[in-house]
């Protein structure tokens, strides 16, 4: 993105004059505010931002940003974003989706956008529930979850969005939580700066239909025992007094005491092997008993879809095959007199 002139924005520049219509207490507010605070720091002209969303409470997001936006249809935001970014790679494209939108109906586009390394950001608001349709279980709801559509409890094993993103070859994968605005802003900034698909899972509290789903990671009494904040090149240390660490036993992470430390695991977000990020992403989600990892799990570089697309175009332009006139007149032609 070539930036000629860097306008100075404030948060207010990114606030639209549409009434925000989420329930009072919804975690979406914090995310909106974090995004509005990060935008002015990116040095990108406001008119170059595009917010594309699907359908869901979370997907109302674009209405509240004073930017270009497209509130598309359920589960399909990534496909629209693909077209937007492909014809105008100058734009900064942000996709807003929910756990239902992005992983239930939209699961296929999720994995294909990621494997192509489409050059946009994906913010997945994971509240482990369908909010807008009033409380059915979602692909991230816990096994056994009782909801309107599962009165005896869900019998589906949930998806871990991070595992799926990594298996799809994601180049940037991170996790954060609505209540930790500072962390969220840091992650959003890193995502913005990443070239290629940046996938950010945001734990988001749905106050009405699934309150306290993430209380283990937000309640001040317990959060430090249940969360480990990743820093690249640093050991995985957590606990109220930073007294615990993670160590690997084969592929299995285990909790150890920092005191008398036995080689705590050192985070390496840039590792070409996906194994580490995969195992870290599973902690506390697919592997209970372990803290959940927040922060950037993986951040590697490979050419983006748009770079490759325009690269081929450039290459083709080196050997143009003819003007419209010539194209029309190609093939076996003959003249009738």
């Amino acid at each position, binding site marked *: 993105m070539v930036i000629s002139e860097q306008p100075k924005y404030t948060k207010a520049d990114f606030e639209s004059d549409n009434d925000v219509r989420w329930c009072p207490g919804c975690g979406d507010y914090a995310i909106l505010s974090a995004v509005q605070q990060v935008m002015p720091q990116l040095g990108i002209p406001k008119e170059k931002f595009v917010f594309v969303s699907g359908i869901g409470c979370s997907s109302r997001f674009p209405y509240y940003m004073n*930017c270009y936006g497209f509130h598309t249809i359920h589960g399909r935001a990534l496909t629209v974003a693909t077209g937007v970014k*492909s014809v105008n790679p100058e734009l900064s494209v942000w996709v807003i989706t929910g756990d239902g939108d992005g992983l239930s109906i939209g699961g296929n586009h999720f994995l294909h956008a990621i494997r192509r390394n489409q050059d946009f950001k994906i913010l997945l608001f994971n509240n482990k529930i369908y909010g807008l349709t009033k409380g059915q279980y979602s692909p991230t709801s816990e096994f056994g979850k009782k909801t309107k559509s599962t009165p005896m409890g869900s019998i589906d094993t949930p998806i871990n969005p991070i595992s799926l993103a990594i298996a799809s070859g994601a180049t940037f994968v991170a996790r954060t939580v609505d209540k930790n605005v500072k962390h969220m802003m840091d992650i959003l900034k890193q995502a913005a700066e990443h070239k290629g698909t940046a996938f950010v899972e945001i734990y988001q509290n749905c106050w009405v239909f699934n309150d306290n789903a993430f209380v283990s990671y937000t309640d001040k009494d317990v959060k430090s025992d249940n969360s480990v904040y990743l820093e690249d090149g640093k050991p995985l240390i957590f606990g109220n007094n930073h007294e615990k660490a993670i160590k690997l036993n084969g592929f299995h992470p285990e909790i150890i005491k920092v005191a008398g430390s036995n080689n705590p695991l050192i985070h390496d977000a840039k590792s070409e092997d996906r194994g580490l990020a995969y195992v870290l992403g599973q902690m506390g989600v697919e592997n209970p008993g372990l803290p959940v990892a927040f922060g950037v799990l993986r951040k590697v570089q490979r050419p983006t879809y748009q770079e490759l697309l325009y690269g081929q*175009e450039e290459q083709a332009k080196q050997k143009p095959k003819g003007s419209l006139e010539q194209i029309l007149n190609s093939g076996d032609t*003959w003249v009738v007199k």
Partner: protein
Amino acid sequence: MSTTQTKIVKKTESLEEAVIRFAGDSGDGMQLTGGQFTTSTAIVGNDLSTLPDYPAEIRAPAGSLAGVSGFQIHFSSKDIHTPGDALDVLVAMNPAALKANLQDLKPGGMLIVNTNAFTETNLKKVGYAKNPLEEESLTTKYQIFSVEVTRLTQNALEDLKLSAKLVDRSKNMFALGLMYWLYSRPMEPTIEWVKKKFAGKPDILEANLRVLKAGYHFGETTETFISHFEIKQAEIKPGKYRNITGNEATVLGIIAAKEVTGLELFLGSYPITPASDILHELSRYKYLGIKTFQAEDEIAAIGSAIGASFAGGFGITTTSGPGVCLKSEFINLAVKTELPLIVCDIQRGGPSTGLPTKTEQADLLQALFGRNGESPVPVIAASTPSDCFETMLEAFRIAIKYMTPVFFMSDGYLANGSEPWFIPSVSSLPKIEVKYRKEKEGFAPFVRDEKTLARPWAIPGTCGLEHVVGGLEAEQVTGRVSYDPVNHDAMVKIRAKKIANIENDIPELKILNGSDKGDLLILGWGSTLGSINAAIEKLLENGHKVANVHLRHLNPFPKNLGAVLKNFKHVLIPEVNLGQLRLLVRARYLVDAQGLNIVSGQPLKVRDIVEAAEKLLK
């Protein structure tokens, strides 16, 4: 049968027209043979029309009925309209090809067969208890020419030491050469083509040329054929021509529109027969900046195209019926957000997977109504292979001028069929104006142009015009989400009116044949044009007061359609469906239009139309 070199002087009969079909196993190269014959025929200056017929299987078992591949060509010294109902010559490379095609050969027609392929095994494969070539029912009804094509090909290549497979694969050239002789076509275009195509493979090059010539000389020298034919050049508009299929013309239309508009062109597509070739072809034009995206499915394909249009490019998506099903939710989003987009539906036999390689016209009502809510879209249809070019330009014009998705309808018959095309000059192409909104003053996403009712195209990156569009109902002018009852009713009606008004911006319908009053009007749309034109000529010849008109615009209809209909006692609407246009016409004009509806995966036969018309005229 002798291959003596003595040259015999043979009679040349002059004909007005001929319909021939090459038929053989999928592996026999019949499509290529037909394509070459077409080129030479075009160069001779005949008018022509072709109909390829592929099997649905990639490569069905050799010698099986399912594996038969055919290519039909109708050529003439006069103007012609269809690939022909019945065959003058059938070339059958094996028993399966004979069995699958014989019913189309005219009584007394020429049946040229490769007798070497009529082995017991091959006969059994298709359920012939006896060799049919020896059956009296055949020998008395047709002129049979038994040619040992396989053996003659082997002979011709004896000293080259090629693999048996390669030798076998060359035998189509023998048939081609023979037919060139039979219809006095020049071999040069094919010789040139072989030389270019196999430049790096001297063996194959040599083999092909030898066999081609062997076939030609066989006709010339052997006593099997006593005369051959000549078909004079047709009187066609002077100029430069090429032969073109519907899919090719569609691609050229897209490229031309891209160049004319200067827009970024983005094709989002997912392969499906018979539309895939458009994706293949277009992907070869990256040097023009044309972007093609093979998406993970049809939904992603159209979604990406809509994203492209939102961002100021032009989005197209190409598919066939089952793909239209998947795209319908997104088409509705484009209707609601009023973005330009073209949805190409290359119709095939349905319902469901149906007959993927066959033609049909049964997606018309789907295009019009296949979405929830009131969702008006313009629908236009091409009527001949080359007409796909102009129709595509028209689709662009409407999509951009009216900020709307447009359905472009073609079908399997147009897509793969071909005809000579008068190559237009670039300067003669219609101008299509593109205006992005730039001024902030008075901007709102849904302020409308007074005349077209189109909303402005304000694209991301434009400072000061930031706005959000989406699928929820929008307030008039401001475009904000609105649940207001009065507003919704108004918006539903404005969207309908915007599309209905296009009738003021499209040409009035013209009588194509016959006069503008009479006993019977034949009304058609899409690929039935050729058959209808031919039928009308017959009917006029037979002294009937008939005429025909043909619709390119299915929604809205041309303004004068109602008036045209009123001037005829009867209206006949022949369609390769159960009466879809008929339903629309009856509802709109309360005219007791009758249908001719044969849904067999094939273009309508001229004789069926003539018959249906004469029944009505009684």
